[in-house]
């Protein structure tokens, strides 16, 4: 079964086509690598899968569903609500002073009981005097603006990283993006936060749910930190960690969101062979936990050593896909990496 299905994905930035009609299937619980020369579009592919970039064309299905916000009945309801509130607000803003006079000032005698039952009637008769100018026009303008604005924001954020993350896609970044001024433990806890049920009032008032979830989350965070062997550093600031530890912390943070698919963007960059070996073991262990791994890597030892399948990108297009052995002997791959051989170059 494929956990991720990318079909004819194209991502364009202005005139530059970074990814061109790439299709890629990732079977569940396998390790799949994406390789290719610099600028081949590997990271853009990752960004599209995780919702950072919106695809220009093509579809991405994760676990049978598209990785964008679905349009549900509640979405329509929320949009309508925003429009309605905006409409009422504009009516109120446009009429605030005469409405106040008609409803409150004329009915209130200083320090006498206020006839509240009269207020709805007074408001209605105020609007009935000139229903078009006082009510309909501001209502329509407010409603349309509110609805259009809410829809625009919703549509622009359909592809959002948090949508992909909540569906179960976690990632690390090519240039490490930890929360440097947070502790190691907080970095991991942050990854867990989207799975918690507590709301801000639980946190503000420290209701029982807060304590329960905090304890559970901290236990799980410690378990993950032990898994990546960072449990000695829990209270360090993330930026004080060594480079290799920062890489591992990024993986720990990504694992904290309980992903089913983990995207690693050059995890072995800048590592020495011993560290790379350790990383390979870690990736194996992650797969053992039932997480599918999609990997961008330049370190060929790592790629060939752990991948079940490899896809090769060049200039935004997929030029080869297969097992490590197949890819190693593929003529187009060799050409992309090393260029055409000498006779060919002389002939052209």
């Amino acid at each position, binding site marked *: 079964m494929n956990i991720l299905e990318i079909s004819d994905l194209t991502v364009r930035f202005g005139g530059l086509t970074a990814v061109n009609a790439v299709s890629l299937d990732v079977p569940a619980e396998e390790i799949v690598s994406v390789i290719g020369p610099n600028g081949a579009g590997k990271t853009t592919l990752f960004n599209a899968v995780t919702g*950072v970039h919106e695809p220009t064309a093509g579809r991405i299905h994760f676990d049978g569903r598209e990785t964008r916000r679905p349009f549900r009945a509640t979405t329509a309801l929320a949009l309508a609500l925003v429009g309605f509130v905006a409409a009422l607000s504009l009516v109120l803003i446009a009429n605030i002073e005469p409405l106040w006079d008609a409803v409150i000032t004329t009915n209130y005698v200083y320090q006498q009981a206020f006839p509240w039952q009269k207020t709805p009637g007074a408001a209605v008769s105020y609007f009935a005097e000139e229903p078009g100018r006082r009510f309909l026009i501001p209502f329509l303008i407010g409603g349309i603006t509110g609805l259009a604005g809410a829809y625009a924001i919703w549509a622009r954020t359909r592809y959002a990283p948090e949508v992909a993350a909540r569906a179960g896609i976690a990632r690390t970044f090519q240039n490490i993006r930890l929360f440097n001024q*947070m502790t190691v433990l907080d970095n991991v806890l942050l990854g867990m936060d989207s799975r918690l049920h507590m709301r801000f009032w639980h946190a503000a*008032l420290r209701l029982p749910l807060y304590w329960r979830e905090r304890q559970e989350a901290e236990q799980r965070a410690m378990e993950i930190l032990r898994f990546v062997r960072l449990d000695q550093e829990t209270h360090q600031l993330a930026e004080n960690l060594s480079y290799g530890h920062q890489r591992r912390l990024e993986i720990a943070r990504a694992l904290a969101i309980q992903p089913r698919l983990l995207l690693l963007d050059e995890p072995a960059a800048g590592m020495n062979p011993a560290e790379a070996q350790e990383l390979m073991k870690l990736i194996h262990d992650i797969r053992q936990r039932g997480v599918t791994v999609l990997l961008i890597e330049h370190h060929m030892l790592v790629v060939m050593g752990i991948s079940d399948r490899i896809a090769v990108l060049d200039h935004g297009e997929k030029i080869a896909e297969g097992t490590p052995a197949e890819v190693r002997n593929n003529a187009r791959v060799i050409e992309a990496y090393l260029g055409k051989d000498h006779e060919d170059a002389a002939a052209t």
Partner: protein
Amino acid sequence: MAARRKILFHWSFLIVAALIPLIELVVPGNHHIGDLLRPIFIMAMLGLGLNILTGFTGLLNLGVAAFMAVGAYSYAILTCDIYPFRLGFWSATLITVLVGLTVGLFLGLPTIRLRGDYLAIVTLGFGEIVEDVLKNLDSITKGTQGINPLPSPSLFGYQFRPETYQPWYYLFLGFLALLVLVNRNLQRSRVGRAWISIREDELASSCMGINPMKMKLLAFALGAAQCSLAGALWASYLGSSGEPGNYDFQVSIIALCMVIVGGMGNIGGVLLGALVITGFNSIVLETLTNFLKAHQIINSSNVFTAPGNWKYMLYGLALVLMMRFRPEGLLPSKQLKAELHPQEPHPPPPS
């Protein structure tokens, strides 16, 4: 052990603050330290509201005075007997907080995609708009007169009086302690974590499943609610909503000064900032002016010699000096300190 000592240390502040009005009983003399502290408590609440937005979430807001004005006016309209509502202190304060929450959402929704300087400009404009609206909505806000007189609150059957300041002092101290507690709880929970992660790296934060729009809206709503609570207490303290000009740009800047001088993103820092800035304004400058006048060193008709007229220049100087020598504030959060002094060698990890 260290944690417990820290908690004791924090509680000792509250105890000292609770004892201050009693000084008067022990030491004879006409020095109302507690009286002077009341506006500081209220400004500290304003600073805490701004701290949620600017300190935690990194949304630069130059219009918090508007939230305070909304709170003061809504409290005034709900309690003053020239309007039909005539509510008591608790219900009026509660409704005011809800109004502040709504206004925060209303400002937050359309500006949700703005960041940095652009958001600062919008909030600046919002502050000016609110001030102008309050000035011109004559029949509702009484224009430049302000709404007064407001009845003094009565709590649990006790009627507050403007002459005795001690009950007010404890009321405001109680509210401030409550806000500090709530803010601290938020800071150390998923909410505070999400806010700080958005300040540090919004993209990474959203890739971890945090919805930045939701968290920013929450910051706007809660920050505005706290500022409007400060406004409501301010109005109850003055016995008047004050005129719209009391909530102008300078108030927003003073609040921002408190947060920056004290230490952005740190609750204790904001309290210290409120004490230093507002205390300087209402205690040091005033005492200095009175002293100079009493000894006839200055001529009260000359505006240049009155120390009070120099205060904005002094604030400006303080800000410039802070930015140059201690950008993280007097009492920084350890996170921001690390952010602003990246070149300093880090202490070796304890083994």
